């Protein structure tokens, strides 16, 4: 009976092969495709380069609690905290991140930092074109990761750290 069982198994496998042969092909035409991702199709859950978010008032969500740095298994997040003042308000809480660097030489895109963040300040974007010929370019500063301050009240934009 083993011959019958073997033939059944092979024909089951081959049926999938032949069925797929007649399906239309699906090619991601990256990098020559249309749109901002140039043809790359990314799932929502894809963990790409980090984005630092702002709140509804345009203030930075990050309060420099260091929990992302503590959660990071590859030790790639470097933060320096500073205190907000009435004249120079960067985040909505008492403290903000004066320096926030992620070293993409080391980052393994595990997403622990995003999970750890109590203010939903750090998120994974869909940026994946991170390759560089110079390793020093791979240390991203806060200004590189912060969402642009467009569309927020001019007053706040003037005080923002963002260069964009």
């Amino acid at each position: 009976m083993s011959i019958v069982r073997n033939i059944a198994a092979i024909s089951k496998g081959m049926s999938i092969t032949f069925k797929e042969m007649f399906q239309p092909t699906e090619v991601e035409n990256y990098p020559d495709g249309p749109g901002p991702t140039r043809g790359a199709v990314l799932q929502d859950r894809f963990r790409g380069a980090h984005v630092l978010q702002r709140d509804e008032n345009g203030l930075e969500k990050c309060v420099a609690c260091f929990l992302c740095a503590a959660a990071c298994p590859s030790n790639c997040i470097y933060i320096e905290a500073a205190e907000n003042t009435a004249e120079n308000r960067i985040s909505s809480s008492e403290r903000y991140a004066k320096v926030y660097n992620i070293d993409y030489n080391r980052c393994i895109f595990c997403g622990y930092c995003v999970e750890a963040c109590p203010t939903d300040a750090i998120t994974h974007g869909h940026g994946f074109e991170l390759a560089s010929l110079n390793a020093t370019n791979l240390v991203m500063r806060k200004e590189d990761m912060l969402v642009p301050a467009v569309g927020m009240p001019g007053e706040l934009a003037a005080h923002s750290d963002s260069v964009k």
Partner: protein
Amino acid sequence: MADVTFTVDGKKLTAPAGTLLIDACKAVGIEIPAFCYYPGLSLQAACRMCVVRIEKMPKLQTACTTTVAEGMVVQTETDEIKQARKATIELLLGNHPLDCPVCDAGGECELQDMTFKYGAAESKYVEIKQHREEQQWSPVVFFDRPRCILCYRCVRVCGEGMDVWALGIQNRGVSAVIAPNGQDHLECEECGMCIDICPVGALTSGTYRYKTRPWEMTHVATICTHCGDGCKTTLGTRRSNDGMEIVRGDNRDKSGINGDFLCIKGRYAFDFANRTERLTKPLVRQADGQFKEASWSEAIDFAAKRLREIRESKGGQAIGVIGSNRTTNEENYLLQKFARTVLGTNNIDHHRTVDYVSFAAALAGKSERTASLRDTANAPAILLLGNDPTEQHPALAWNLRSNVRLNRARIYIANHAEIKLRRQAKQFLEIPKDGYASLVQYLAGNDSVVAANEQTAAFRDAIRKEESLLIIFGSEFRGRDIQALVEFGLSLPNTKFVLLGDYANSRGAADMGLLPDTLPGYVPVASAAHFADEYGAVLPQNAGLDLLQMFDAAQSGNLAALYVVGSNPVTRYGVDPAVLKNTFVIVQDMFLTETAQLADVVFPAANLYEKAGTVTNTYGDIQLVKKAADKAGVRSDFELIVRLADRMGADLKKLVPFGRGVRADMGQTRGAQSGEADRHSVWLAAHGLEPKLSPFDPFATLDEIQRLVPSYSFSRLELLAGSDQHAKSELVQISAAPARRDLVLPSQDTLFTSGTLGRYSDKLKEVLDSHTTPKPVEAAAD
């Protein structure tokens, strides 16, 4: 008291009757949580966290107020108790903001820990939290009212512990709030004990707030560089652009000789290390009289060449050396060895704040006669003559206050001023400023020397009745007066002595022979046989010039070179800058002090927080100094002396006995390092010494100190484990104090000053300013 036996969680325990249940449990490792209970302070029973079930008692009982009793059966962790604690935390969190991510206490918060343990993460209370803006109470104390859980620890430590009573409670019940005594600000000693003791983040520190998180720092426990008490301070450091920067000083694990206590200087006055104007490059004076930055090899070559020329043309007696009160024992020892063997001179001195030589001579051969700082916390009777510990020895003052409060110690004080500690004194005697010596004669039985009255008679009678007395005295006693005081003390049974000097290692400087007439261990220079054998050199036999004589010699043109290590004698002794114009001056310091401004070569030096070694506090407790911070461009005084000696052609193997034995420095002296700053290994590699030892190893010098100075024969293991070791004064080989001027110049520091070093601390300056210019009283704190 008699022991009682009781049962906790099924374990049979024994403790003296009268012990609090919470303490008895802690002693055997059963931890009962509590916010308001703090050992040594009065009982509050405010937080209700320590509730336990005691059989035959109708309700849950607070373990912090219940004393153990015979046959008691206690449960500390049942479902019922967990439920009660959870409910307590829920109530505490009712108005506690959920700002843990920004709160300074986050990560070391007792409320956070308890919430995790008992799981009161969700609350059934829907009331809106009351927010209040943060208040600044002083340059170093900030108060965030909503975070406060009203445990009253700060109120009690300020009142009972510090005897300052600057904090209190306003209002009652749910509107109760901690408030400062100066309406909207604190009028206090700025010790920061309230911040330290706060179980949550309600009281935060002005130097540390919002800078970093506890787990982000490297914590290094070392010895405070300021006064002579030698408290342990734990420095939190983090990497910076040029090394490791100190972000916080506190009493993190309370394992030091200071117990619970730390004053403003140990807690906040580390900021001199982070000043931008610190020297990081050697300076050499050019022909035009201006300083120019030079490379290390240029500067050391230049200094060594000039010193060698002067030694060869004019001899060692034309060179003077001034040491420091804040360098380690190893550095002090090495400096005197360098002066006596390489430079060939006994012209070595330091800023003396008390007369340790006479003290050592008076106690020579008498064992168990000096007290540790620890002894001041449990001595039954204390006689305090002179000094003002509240200002100059805050840890001693804390110990004395605690001793009165907890052990009912009897303190007798005689002083020319109404010092604050008189409030704890059993008897206080105000005497004239020059009346200390005659008071001792009077105490010894000579009635004619003072205007005796009932008060003085009662004072004398009380002291003479004491069976175990600790005599603490300050710089008011010198030379023969110390001798007389010690003789009087020894006429009573079981007397111990403490001499109060001013700086972190003043005692070590004297012990290590930074004096013109004594070698390490107070051995007179004339009888230096075993030192000469060990050093393999001919040591100068005659006493050298003391500090003032050096400047006199400089004025008359007889001092060709002066080597100053970590000291500012020009300001301290009011030296006219013109005096040094024909002297070749080398200065090692952190800053361009008044003395450094007159120098020909200035080497940027590391401070006590940036090096390893040992220091001796004024009580004779020897403690380990660990390297915490690091700054690119500076070098330790130890390394500088070694390099200078090397360039002068000295045999380094003789100067630092490295490469012997197995007591290797396996990197302990280097501390946390960043980047290329690992000079230790650079030197090793350059000389093919990698697997052995380096001449920058202070522990090699400690080996030699322990060989040659019998009073320093302590257990190295205990020292490295972080314990304090008491110097053995009975082993000091000195027969009588040499006849000489004592040259004692007390530093006259207060709580907010610390010699030249204190001037470079912004925080001390800010606090000092806030105390000298009182704020106008405005609205109430609330």
